[in-house]
């Protein structure tokens, strides 16, 4: 059983399109995250949710909108995609204090 699963694993799309990435965790954790990893492998947090409430919102463009329907799910919707949005997006979860577990990543390529 995959602990943190995200879909799709690969996304190729044109500039200006809208896309969503879904994430689910079955670890019973209260906190979920979205991280972005750029082409130089630099990892940066985008959003953090605790029990469906947004607690961290880094300086991310408004085109990125997370949504947490329940504490086991955290989705990421991106409007009006730009070339610079190309990256690998990782979902993660953790207990309130403790280890962070990552999903396998979703590679987004914007053409």
């Amino acid at each position, binding site marked *: 059983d995959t602990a943190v699963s995200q879909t799709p694993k690969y996304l190729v799309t044109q500039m200006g399109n809208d896309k969503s990435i879904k994430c689910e965790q079955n670890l019973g954790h209260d*906190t979920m995250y979205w991280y972005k990893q750029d082409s*130089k*492998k*630099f*990892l*940066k*947090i985008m959003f*953090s949710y*605790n029990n469906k409430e947004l*607690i*961290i919102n880094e300086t991310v463009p408004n085109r990125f909108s997370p949504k947490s329907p329940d504490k086991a799910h955290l989705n990421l919707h991106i409007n009006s995609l730009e070339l610079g949005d190309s990256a*690998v997006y*990782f979902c993660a979860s*953790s*207990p*309130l*204090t*403790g*280890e*962070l*577990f*990552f999903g*396998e*990543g979703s590679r987004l390529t914007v053409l």
Partner: protein
Amino acid sequence: GIQVEQSPPDLILQEGANSTLRCNFSDSVNNLQWFHQNPWGQLINLFYIPSGTKQNGRLSATTVATERYSLLYISSSQTTDSGVYFCAPGGSSYKLIFGSGTRLLVRP
């Protein structure tokens, strides 16, 4: 915010060798984790170690929080240890700051 510096940036080892990776951080932290990103891109949590020493098989980690550094030891390295090792300190799990990583290549 917290500044994180990992060294060395790149490391090449012969299989069987030992190595130490270092992580320096600029502020006091309540949380520090080490991760391995394998060549297929998977990010695996190695240690949750805000202070003290932990061991897991051939890997061990030590964090000296008062001196703001953490060390990851890899003994008897194997080709499967190749990848990027990230240190991530933070005030909490909510906001870990990832270092730029140490890229390790273990040659057979």
